[in-house]
């Protein structure tokens, strides 16, 4: 069997080879890429024999040997396991390389050996690190049942656990640890003095006397009472400076810098993680992000082991393909719309968007009113009933959750009338939901801020309402704490009280309601929005409640297992699958929006609002930001001038201008590359056509020769080598080359 054929055996099992096409340099390089010539001296000889038999002569041979050398060098430099060969061939390559290496000097041998040893060490370390990853077994199980799309949600959860762990470690080691180790490291602390002025009165909120049990629960759920004066909240950190034996630790400075650091660290980590996703989507904007090739060639998750899941995956792929093809047809239809129809559609869209804005405004106003009502009711301190108290405390959270439950349903109904293409519909609804969720937190904070800075006399004496909010940061921290707890309770409650009964109903009851409602689908976008909402609260709240990241880690832990159990028992995969790659991009994009939103309240409260005089580390400063200029003024004058120069306008403007120039340069470069790529593509297509044309002519010439010679020698060569070529699909009839059957009717 001639193993050097470029094409494998055809369907009838006969070995086919076409001497003409096989001689082309491009096909030869394909041959050598497939079976490297480095080991096959026998093959080299046989291929040379074949070439010379078709009479191409010395020219082809010398070209081939030059190519052989080049490819041999190329393949020799790559590790063996990266070559696509069978194990036996790889073993032969390895022994050959070892033989060749024996000829090399001792130094090079030693270097190669060390390199191999280090590589093995690195592989082992990598394996060990991978085995430490959280939740590996659970994720593998989910992967087998549902494929990689849903897996991205759990990877995202894991990433957030890691992020919160780092944030908590930062907070702990720079803010809490110094305070804790003071007695052990023989330091002494200077506390912020209570100077007796009106602003620094901080009535204790600890409960006195006989405490009823349910009040403990109220305290736990609302962060008040016995929890208020603990490490949990900002108000407890009354330390000004800690004097150790050699250094003085400035706690307010540390607190502020850690806040800036964790926001910055989150930004860097998220951007790094999403770098590949952004690059791909920015560079290839000429292909749709979910192109057909991606769906077909990378469509099947090879890791699915469950038969049921495989069936569902097939049907979801079918659905997705049909939808995409449908969408193409709709796009065509949209392009064909008449002017009158277009005006009508735009009018409808305008009205519906105004309606959407109205709904959003209504939700925001109700959140505002609920917050104000809740704050005033808490201030009045009229304890009616345990349950009613709890509801009043949680009123903002309840209203936010209700709004976030109703508005997605409303949006998905409205979008049907706006007549967009299906993919755009999904994306637009999602954008609206994201906006709704994240802005509701902003509204809550705004209403809190308006309450805090509203006093009876017009400019507040202390800059904030010291009568009602003697320690306003703790109050804000308590609100964030309540939001986190309530979010977790809602997620757990919805799973237990909605999804499980739904599954039981669908499984055991055959009524129409069960059929209409259907089995629960694991809707990734909604779940991700919940998580991002929780994380945004964590980012905002860490400044006021330093232990909030730790609470969030515990919360995510429980959420992982709740969602996993719910997924395996209740859910079926979504009909429209969420692709692993685009999910990564979407998750991190929404997370970045959340981070940007979280920076605003923190920034405003650090820089603008007067910090409370009764509690916290910043008592001796007007605003929290003042710590920095105060510290800078104590630094040596050289450093001071440098820092002042860095923060001056001149530096900022020139930095901005340089960044803009760099951006324009890169954009121009990318445009130039794109043009070159298009030109090369056209050239490639043109060359392909040239090749086919020339081969056609060659066939014709050969056939004329064959016909002429067969006229005199009818008994010659009955063997007809039929040629199986890719070109045949383009031509109407097959192309026969080299030794055609004399009687065959081939027209080209």
């Amino acid at each position: 069997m001639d193993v050097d054929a470029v094409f494998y055996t055809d369907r009838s099992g006969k070995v086919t080879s076409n001497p003409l096409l096989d001689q082309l340099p491009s096909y030869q390089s394909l041959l050598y890429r497939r079976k490297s010539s480095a080991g096959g001296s026998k093959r080299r000889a046989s291929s040379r024999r074949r070439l010379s038999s078709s009479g191409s002569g010395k020219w082809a041979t010398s070209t081939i040997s030059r190519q052989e050398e080049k490819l041999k060098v190329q393949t020799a430099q790559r590790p063996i396991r990266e070559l696509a060969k069978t194990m036996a061939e790889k073993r032969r390559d390895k022994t050959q390389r070892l033989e060749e290496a024996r000829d090399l000097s001792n130094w090079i041998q030693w270097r190669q050996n060390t390199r191999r040893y280090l590589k093995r060490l690195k592989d082992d370390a990598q394996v060990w690190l991978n085995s430490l990853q959280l939740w590996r077994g659970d994720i593998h199980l989910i992967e087998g049942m549902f494929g990689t799309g849903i897996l991205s949600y759990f990877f995202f959860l894991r990433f957030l656990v890691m992020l919160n762990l780092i944030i908590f470690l930062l907070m702990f080691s720079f803010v809490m640890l110094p305070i804790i180790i003071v007695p052990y490291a023989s330091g002494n602390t200077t506390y912020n003095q209570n100077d007796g002025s009106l602003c620094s009165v901080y009535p204790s909120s600890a409960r006195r006397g006989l405490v009823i049990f349910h009040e403990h629960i109220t305290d736990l759920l609302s962060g008040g009472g016995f929890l208020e004066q603990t490490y949990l909240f900002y108000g407890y950190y009354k330390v000004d400076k800690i004097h150790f034996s050699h250094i003085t630790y400035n706690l307010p400075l540390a607190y502020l810098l850690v806040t800036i650091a964790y926001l910055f660290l989150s930004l860097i980590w998220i951007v790094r993680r999403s770098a590949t996703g952004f690059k791909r989507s920015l560079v290839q904007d000429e292909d749709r992000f979910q192109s057909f090739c991606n769906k077909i060639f990378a469509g099947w998750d090879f890791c699915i082991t469950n038969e049921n899941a495989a069936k569902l995956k097939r049907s979801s792929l079918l659905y997705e393909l049909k939808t995409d093809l449908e969408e193409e047809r709709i796009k065509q239809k949209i392009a064909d719309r008449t002017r009158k129809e277009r005006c009508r559609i735009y009018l409808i869209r305008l009205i519906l968007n105004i309606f959407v804005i109205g709904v959003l405004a209504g939700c925001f106003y109700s959140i505002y009113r609920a917050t104000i009502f809740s704050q005033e009711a808490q201030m009045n301190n009229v304890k009616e009933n345990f349950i009613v108290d709890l509801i009043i405390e949680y009123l903002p959270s309840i209203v936010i959750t209700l709004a976030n439950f109703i508005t997605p349903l409303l949006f998905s109904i409205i979008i049907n009338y706006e007549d967009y293409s299906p993919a755009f519909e999904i994306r637009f609804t999602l954008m609206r939901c994201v906006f709704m969720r994240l802005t509701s937190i902003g509204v809550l904070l705004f209403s809190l801020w308006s309450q805090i800075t509203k006093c009876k006399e017009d400019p507040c004496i202390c800059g904030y309402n010291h009568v009602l909010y003697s320690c306003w940061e703790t109050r804000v921290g308590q609100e964030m704490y309540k939001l986190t707890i309530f979010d977790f309770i809602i997620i757990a409650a919805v799973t237990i009280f909605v999804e499980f009964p739904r599954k039981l109903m669908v499984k055991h009851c055959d009524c129409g309601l069960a059929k209409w409602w259907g089995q629960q689908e694991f809707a990734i976008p909604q779940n991700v929005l919940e998580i991002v909402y929780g994380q945004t609260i964590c980012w905002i709240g860490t400044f006021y409640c330093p232990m909030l990241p730790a609470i969030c880690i515990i919360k995510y832990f429980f959420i992982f297992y709740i969602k996993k159990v719910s997924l395996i028992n209740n859910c079926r995969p979504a009909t429209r699958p969420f692709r692993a790659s685009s999910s990564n991009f979407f998750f991190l994009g929404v997370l970045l929006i959340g981070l940007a939103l979280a920076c605003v309240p923190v920034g405003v409260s650090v820089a603008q609002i007067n910090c409370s005089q009764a509690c916290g580390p910043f008592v001796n400063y007007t605003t929290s930001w003042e710590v920095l200029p105060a510290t800078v003024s104590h630094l040596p004058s050289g450093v001071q001038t440098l820092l002042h120069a860095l923060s001056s306008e001149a530096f900022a403007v020139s930095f901005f201008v340089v960044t803009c120039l760099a951006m324009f340069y890169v954009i121009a470069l990318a445009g130039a590359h794109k043009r070159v790529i298009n030109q090369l593509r056209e050239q490639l297509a043109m060359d392909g056509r040239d090749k086919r044309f020339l081969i056609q002519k060659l066939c014709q010439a050969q056939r004329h020769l064959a016909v002429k010679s067969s006229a005199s020698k009818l008994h010659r060569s009955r063997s007809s080598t039929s040629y199986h070529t890719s070109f045949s699909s383009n031509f109407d009839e097959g192309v026969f080359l080299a030794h055609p059957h004399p009687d065959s009717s081939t027209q080209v």
Partner: protein
Amino acid sequence: MGTTASQLGKDSLAEYQELTFLTKQEILLAHKRFTELLHKDHKGDPHARVPMDRVLTLPELKSNPFRKRICHVFSTSEQKDGSLTFEDFLDLLSAFSDSATLEIKSHYAFRIFDFDDDGTLDSGDLEKLVNCLTGDTDDTRLTTEEMRQLISNILEESDIDKDGTVNLSEFQHVISRSPDFVSSFKIVL
């Protein structure tokens, strides 16, 4: 660990580690699963072949629509019957492992998708590929019109030299820009 008749020697283990992308634990696990598939007469033979229908009982391959093609591609048997030796099995797992390079994966993916083994993906191959993905029964197939539209879209995106087929370089090029490929082309025992 239970003592099977053929334990992997340390030398073979080190060699396999060097020649494949698998870690030591993965190779040992593969050995264990492979010997379970062997007929008990062959258990001592390191070059024993497992027939294709026994390989297809593995849970990782059982629900895979490309299982037969995978066996054919990785099989080194003379009769082209899709049977696998242990080394073929290791090659299979190595190509599908997490740490395999994109080039290896795309090379083998191309060969798996090339149903007629002619070195290119033409419309017949693509049609069979789509039918494998969606299911081969009558109600799960695309209509002829949709199939034609789909295949022309695929060729428009991937066929650079416009010859109506996708060859290996074009396939590798389109795969390198496909974001989902690496995560979906994976089999882990």
